[in-house]
């Protein structure tokens, strides 16, 4: 019942915060969010599962209760954690707490509603990563859209209405494509009688669908694979479905950006891993080359787009497209280090991009500008915040002893020697070139903003960042370094869950 407790605390906390007075909402939400954060860390410490949730692994904190019958199909409340989902749940709870702290300064109106929505999104995200029944999972998956739509729409920047609607429409249409594909798959499977993901995954490995509406089994599997891939690709997002992301990021308030980049994008890659790469090994093999090509294009193109930006937040936003490209490359490599590295990168990118957005937010709060061209010499005025920003940027570039290095190393190591992916060495080397561009745009931006003489013209004093902001930045940096120094903290549990997939790849 631990997962239910996590969700319930966040959900009830959301309601309480929603009706609390604005004055205390921020502190109240922080206090409430400490409970799921502590609980999830306890889950992490007490984790005793093994294997992969969808490949008859032993789940931790599992609970299942019958919910409803739809004709011949049964739906249940079915949650549990394995080595892939547990780190993501921990990431969610920690980032939500830090996002709440980082909202104290910038959010100055309708606080109770704002913090209520943040806690609501936390509850739904925990649900996404722990649900193991398609219906339940889809409920959480779609429910994330509502608070994010409102967060961008109400507290966002000047073009927030456009960005909010674009975000909603893009991701909702994608969800629909994915939903239709998966339902078709379940009907096509014939002897499957529930929407439980493990059952579907097992049936897929034991022969796949029989066909539906005149499509043969193999055609149906391919159609579903592509439908699911497109549905998740928008969420990830990968080129060419990425255009909602910069808009949403730039307009979103800082805490929403942190959650968007830190956790929401992981929903896409997590779903790709759970559905496409776990259930369809044959199709992964068939479409490996085009997927790898898309991944490499995302890496390079995303990085080049970031290089062309002058808005600090936009730079960080586009860099996410590039980082998610690495995740796709790791997944399609289909080796222990590739898929494991991709999962590790999800966590690592969640921490680092959260850190970067938070740092950009702190700088914006102090200077009221995000334009690289306007800023200079900030290092003198806000040394700690800028120091953390530089450290975070190094993490992004993949400097050793930071989690980014470990993640990218695993991915490249895994994909270079991939047997399933043709031309794997070529794809890997091309993707590696992305690192150079990343270093390019980050150093370029840092050099112009933080170094050099101070010349920002403002009517007010640009001073040191508030203590609570610095504290959350340092917590995040600490985690980045911790995972960089000791990747085994989570990599072991990840590989436990990954091995059944990559070893079963040639089934």
């Amino acid at each position, binding site marked *: 019942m631990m997962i239910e407790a996590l969700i319930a605390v966040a959900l009830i906390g959301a309601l309480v915060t929603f009706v609390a007075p604005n004055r205390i909402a921020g502190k109240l939400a922080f206090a409430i969010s400490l409970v799921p954060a502590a609980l999830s860390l306890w889950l992490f410490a007490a984790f005793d599962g093994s294997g992969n949730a969808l490949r008859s692994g032993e789940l931790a904190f599992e609970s299942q209760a019958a919910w409803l019958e*739809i004709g011949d199909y049964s739906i249940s409340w079915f949650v549990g954690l394995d080595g892939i989902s547990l780190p993501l749940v921990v990431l969610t709870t920690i980032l939500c707490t830090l996002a709440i702290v980082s909202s104290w300064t910038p959010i100055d109106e309708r606080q109770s509603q704002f913090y209520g929505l943040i806690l609501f999104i936390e509850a739904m995200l925990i649900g996404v990563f722990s649900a193991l029944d398609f219906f339940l999972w889809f409920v959480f998956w779609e429910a994330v859209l509502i608070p994010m739509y409102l967060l961008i729409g109400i507290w966002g920047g000047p073009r927030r209405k456009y960005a909010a609607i674009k975000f909603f429409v893009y991701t909702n249409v994608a969800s629909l494509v994915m939903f239709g594909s998966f339902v078709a798959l379940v009907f096509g499977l014939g002897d499957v009688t529930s929407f439980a993901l493990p059952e579907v995954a097992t049936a897929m490995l034991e022969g796949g669908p029989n066909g539906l*509406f005149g499509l043969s089994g193999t055609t149906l599997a391919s159609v579903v694979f592509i439908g699911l891939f497109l549905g998740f690709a928008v969420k990830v997002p990968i080129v060419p479905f990425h255009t909602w992301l910069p808009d949403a990021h730039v307009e979103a308030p800082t805490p929403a950006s942190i959650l968007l980049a830190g956790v929401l994008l992981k929903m896409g890659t997590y779903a790709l891993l759970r559905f496409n790469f776990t259930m369809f090994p044959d199709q992964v093999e068939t479409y490996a080359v085009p997927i790898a090509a898309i991944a490499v294009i995302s890496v390079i193109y995303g990085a080049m787009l970031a290089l062309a930006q002058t808005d600090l937040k936009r730079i960080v936003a586009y860099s996410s497209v590039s980082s998610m490209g690495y995740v796709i490359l790791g997944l399609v490599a289909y080796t222990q280090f590739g898929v494991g590295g991709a999962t590790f990168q999800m966590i690592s990118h969640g921490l680092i991009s959260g850190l970067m957005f938070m740092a950009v937010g702190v700088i914006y709060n102090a200077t009221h500008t995000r334009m690289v061209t306007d800023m200079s010499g900030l290092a003198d005025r806000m040394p700690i915040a800028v120091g953390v920003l530089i450290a975070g940027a190094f993490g992004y570039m993949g400097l050793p002893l930071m989690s980014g290095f470990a993640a990218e190393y695993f991915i490249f190591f895994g994909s270079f020697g991939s047997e399933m992916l043709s031309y794997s060495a070529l794809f890997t080397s091309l993707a590696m070139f992305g690192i150079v561009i990343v270093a390019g745009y980050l150093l370029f931006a840092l050099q112009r903003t933080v170094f050099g003489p101070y010349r920002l013209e403002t009517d007010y004093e640009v001073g040191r960042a508030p203590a609570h902001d610095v504290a959350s930045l340092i917590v995040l940096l600490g985690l980045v370094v911790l995972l960089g120094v000791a990747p085994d903290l989570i990599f072991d549990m990840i590989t436990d869950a990954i091995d059944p997939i990559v070893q079963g790849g040639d089934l």
Partner: protein
Amino acid sequence: MAVVDLPQWLALAPALILAVTALVLFAFDSINPGSTNRTVLSGTTVIGALASLAVAVWYAAAGVGATGIENYGVIDIMGGQFVVDQLALFFMIVVAIVTALVAVASHDYLRDHAYQAEYYSLIVLAATGMSMMAASNSLVTAFIALELTSLPSYALVAILKDNRGSVEAGLKYFLIGALSSAIFVYGVSLVYGATGSLQLESIAANLGAAGELGGLLGLGILMLIGGVAFKTASVPFHFWAPEAYEGAPAPVSAFLSSASKAAGFVLAFRVFTTAFPLEATTAVIGVDWTWAFVILAIVTMTLGNFAAATQENVKRMLAYSSIGHAGYVLIGLAALSTPSGDLVMGAAMIHLFVYGFMNTGAFLFVGLAEHWGVGRTFEDYNGLATQAPVACAAMAVFMFSLAGIPPFGGFGSKYLLFIHTIEAAAENTALLAAAAALVINSTLSLYYYSRLVKALWIEEPLRERDALAKPTGLYAAIVAAAVVTAVILAAFGPITDVATEAAATVVG
């Protein structure tokens, strides 16, 4: 365990309680004419509706045949003119819930209004008609119940006598209603002419005897469809709905678009499944009548949604969207030709059940806005959330639920409807088009539903507004509807069982 032998007609208690409540209200009005004691009047109505609800739930839980009468499934009353089964009880529950919500909300809405007692007694009389419609088992009782629902409704729509829009809407509603009643009753006479009976089972039994009168029967069926289409605001008899809903006081719009529509559907479900079993009817008239519903369903949902998307007036948007939802429910009838038809119909019934909360709530929110006097268009609603966050959060729940976004009830019912339609489509590929239309229209609907959420939550108000009152009754009704809409998904299991069983009793 028969404690006392109760008379059979007590099975109709949910409807009878409503009728008695109406009489009590009349009596109150005779003793104390022109009374404006709102608490007594709306309180009586709410108590009556809740009593009706309680009895209906009790009957349904006790296994259809109420304990104390005879412990068998379906109860025939007056020689089969009425029938009380799970289907009837299910819809009596929906009607009672909506009536209670509307009565609570009317307490504030009708402040300073001249015709208090009349208003409540008309509401309860219409609800009685709806409850009886759910139990009607013959075309005569169906027609009487239909008229018992319609006549108070005309008056209710026009009850704001000093408001031109209200009177005009009432007149339009009355004229179209009279026309469609005529069509319906003409259809009844044709069916009687062809089969020689009005009771639904004996119509089915006499179908074979219709022989060369097949054409006549077909025409009769078509006209019955017309009558039902009017009551459910489906194409081609939908055009009264936006006018009537816009002109009527908002609680009345809520009542008509939720309860009256549900009653129209239960009539359709019963008449078409019991009186015109598919194979026998097809043999006589030569056409599969489910095709009419396949086409009607697709056209209705598409037309409703596209028209809703272009509205500037919130109430009209809701009116057109309610036409769209009628289209979704029509799939329940369209799928009857397939083996899993009962499942699809059950899903359609659940949609009506959930709709009873989310749509009533949405119209009641409009009623709240009218109470505040903020205006009628999307722009007028701008920025209300800063002043009334709780009510606006409830409205956001209704909008996302109507659009079919999880975790709200509307998602669950649309999901069931979609899944079952896909399942049924294996037998009848035309249903694939209906399922696709359902999904595409649902997505389209997100546009105009989220537009209202955007107006409430994201936009800044166009001009300064005074502080908004917080009328207890309206707030209570809206919040109650929102809470149920939000948590109903958790209790979907038992509701699905009841609805599917109810559908199975008539589909057979």
